[in-house]
């Protein structure tokens, strides 16, 4: 791709990029036209809470969308909400809660993991990073709830895609492409998401003392049952002991979440305990508030929040490969880990930082995880992230296609250049 990065690095990292604050869509478009005319690159931010994700940026300017904030349309009966991208997620979540609705994709907040105070950031940031929480297997990720977008591309052109209704197949599904694109394709100026009724009640069944293999098998069986399990995580003892919600239970813990009407939860619990009885061991039930707390801790990975100098990896894999993958990595590196998504998501905190772990983790993905396993370095020193690829690399044909897509949205590489991949 283009050789513009070298030019910017020559200017030195001390140079302070100019901040362009925009308050509406037309100002955003105007600012982008200016960047385009001057050939200047920009970091796209709002509250910047997710800045530690991906590669660190060196840009000529900062395009600050924080003031592009506010819910523009909320129609609970239509299950849709539109907002400007700088709208705080906390405002959206409290607004939804008033109508007993929620974001079913359970957006995680990694602030504490990154050594900062809790801050859910903005809706735009959440969609741009695109990660789903513990409800991922049953309710999907942000991509599954992202219905419509208005934005400005790197040609300086405003465009819209998708719609404001929950069922729509008119034209290419560009919202999905923008979800998880880390602001490298377009600057969003308004987004529409699907919102869902919040489950009135939550309960969590804890099963104690299972090893990893037993736990992943049990979670698979639970997720294969009609009990509508909406969270399935396993914490080996070294992690379980550090979670406030599990402190009273020594040893490994496997957690299964059930949500819905209390009577329904009761019936499903009965079904589950009967079906899973052959695994043996003790089980306990968490009450409503402890249960809610536990799944926030799982989503936000608070188990690894303490020692911010230690690298944290997030591995996505097929559940059937998860135990082998964890074992392979732990044979070479010291650390702690736990499983979410019934095993399909593996979180690892390594004891010490080094550049060597990258090769070991990625190699383990290939050898033990299967063709679809991939690892993201979620927490690492800035210089490590700058010198390496924190996001999983793409196969050759996909990398080429990805570059062609980038060129059709942002050919001058104005937006977040190098945030995803050095060359993108």
């Amino acid at each position: 791709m283009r050789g513009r990065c070298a030019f910017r690095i020559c200017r030195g990292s001390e140079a302070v990029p100019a901040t362009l604050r925009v308050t509406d869509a037309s100002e955003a478009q105007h600012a982008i036209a200016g960047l385009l005319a001057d050939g200047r690159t920009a970091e796209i931010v709002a509250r910047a809470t997710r800045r530690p994700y991906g590669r660190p940026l060196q840009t000529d300017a900062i395009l600050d969308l924080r003031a592009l904030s506010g819910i523009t349309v909320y129609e609970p009966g239509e299950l849709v909400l539109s907002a400007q991208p700088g709208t705080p997620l906390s405002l959206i979540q409290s607004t939804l809660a008033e109508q007993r609705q929620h974001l079913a994709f359970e957006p995680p907040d990694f602030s504490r993991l990154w050594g900062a105070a809790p801050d859910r950031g903005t809706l735009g940031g959440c969609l741009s990073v695109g990660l789903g929480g513990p409800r991922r297997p049953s309710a999907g990720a942000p991509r599954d709830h992202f219905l419509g977008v208005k934005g400005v591309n790197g040609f300086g052109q405003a465009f819209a895609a998708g719609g404001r209704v929950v069922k729509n197949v008119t034209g290419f599904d560009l919202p999905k492409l923008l979800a998880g694109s880390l602001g490298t394709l377009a600057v969003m100026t308004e987004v529409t998401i699907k919102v869902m009724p919040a489950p009135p009640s939550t309960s969590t069944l804890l099963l104690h003392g299972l090893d990893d293999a037993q736990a992943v098998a049990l979670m698979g069986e639970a997720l294969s049952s009609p009990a509508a399990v909406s969270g399935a995580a396993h914490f080996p003892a070294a992690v379980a002991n550090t979670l406030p919600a599990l402190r009273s239970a020594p040893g490994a813990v496997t957690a299964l979440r059930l949500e819905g009407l209390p009577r329904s939860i009761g019936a499903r619990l009965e079904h589950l305990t009967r079906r899973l009885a052959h695994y043996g061991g003790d089980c306990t039930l968490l009450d409503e508030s402890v249960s809610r707390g536990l799944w926030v801790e799982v989503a936000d990975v608070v188990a690894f929040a303490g020692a911010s100098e230690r690298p944290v990896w997030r591995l996505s894999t097929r559940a059937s490969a998860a135990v082998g993958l964890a074992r392979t990595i732990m044979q070479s590196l010291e650390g702690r880990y736990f499983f979410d998504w019934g095993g399909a998501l593996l979180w690892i905190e390594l004891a010490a930082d080094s550049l060597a772990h990258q090769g070991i983790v990625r190699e383990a993905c290939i050898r033990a995880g299967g063709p679809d396993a991939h690892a993201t370095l979620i927490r690492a020193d800035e210089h490590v992230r700058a010198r390496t690829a924190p996001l999983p690399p793409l196969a050759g044909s996909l990398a080429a296609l990805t570059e062609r897509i980038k060129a059709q949205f942002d050919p001058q590489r104005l937006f977040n250049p190098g945030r995803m991949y050095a060359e993108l």
Partner: protein
Amino acid sequence: MRMPAADPGLVSRRAEFLGALRRFVPGEGVIGTPEELAAYECDGLTAYRQPPLAVVLPADTAQVAAVLAYCHAQGLKVVPRGSGTSLSGGALPLADAIVVGLGKLNRVLEIDYANRCVVAQPGVTNLAITQAVAERGFYYAPDPSSQIACSIGGNVAENSGGVHCLKYGMTTNNVLGVEMVLIDGSIVRLGGRAYDAPGYDLLGIVNGSEGLLGVVTEVTARILPRPEHQQALLIGFPTVEAAGSCVAAIIDHGLIPAGMEMMDRLAIQAAEAFVHAGYPLDVEALLIVEFDGPRAEIDEHVSIVEALVARCGAGYLRISSSERERLQFWAGRKAAFPAVGRLSPDYYCMDGTIPRRCLPQVLRRISELSQTYGLAVANVFHAGDGNLHPLILYDASLGDQLDKAERFGADILTLCVEVGGVLTGEHGVGVEKRDLMEVQFQPSDLQQQQRLKCAFDPDGLLNPGKVFPHLCRCAELGRMHVHAGALRFPDLPRF
């Protein structure tokens, strides 16, 4: 309906193309006789017909790749086709294009219960996936009404829905990965069996891309455990407004039924006459509300809806007391299209989505339009998600009725957009709604979509004439600076 003009140079090289294609796909896999090509001249949108230059039926991914690489080198257009059940003309051939039919790729490759997914070739029918996993208590959730015939590859192309997608999502929410051949013959894998994939969400844009981005040669579909129980309520209303307010009350109460379907008077009467489902005939609107899950949950939901129904002024309520009765409730709804088809030689099925609160207003306007055009209309409605299927009755043998029906349909879809909805909820744009795209989108919106197309298919060889009212001009788009959203060549011919 104008399609891109055929290139006589390509048409004249037909024999050469047939010979070459037979090198990649031996035996009966290349079809060239007029009699056999006639079978491929249309899909589920039968109003438009055009035999292709040739039909190729590859038997594996390697053959698909060889065929596409050849077409790419020759500048030969390609129309991908699954089972040919598209209702929007997505698989309508062109005179100078070959149809690549995926029907021979019809095997379920792997059932992976540990990761709750099925790996299938694209020609496997939607229902066959459910049948393959039924013995272990699983199913594939999206259930378009053509599920007995439509293929999973076609479902991906159209991002198909069904009556249960309010609760369980569309195809895009239920597919984990695909293998796809790009127009240059290269093979890419998007997604897999893990829940997310690195890089841009290309799987997300391939779903619903209507054969414009590549040819899907393998699909990994999520399967779900079948719910313990299902129960349906059949509710009759004296007015459409009352039915609409009942739907709103159910959603407002925080319930997401597994299915929520509405029919208007004409649809009810037609369905009842056809399958004798036991529908009341003295109501203006009928609602089927289905819940699934554990017994205790269904009981609670049903009793909530019972209370709501009374407040909404329903005059009729039946709750299924057996599986047989539940299926009977559905029998009328599932047969609604053919039932309406009995009332008239032809019918034209529309597919707009509207904000649900606009339902009474939209149905009133449709009824007025029905008077204006002199054509009857029956309304079937996925009420939970606002997806409206007006069925316009006409007789193609009578003078200008097809033309009238199409104009009536266009008016309905324009109305859907005007009230804040969209042109298509699940059938796709295809050729049918292509020329209405500018009702919903600004030129700059369509240009961004076309730019995406250019990243996959810069020569515009895959399914040209579909989705976009103007052909992609990738070279122009690449350097174009559009001012105020104005198209640079407004006077270029449309088709």
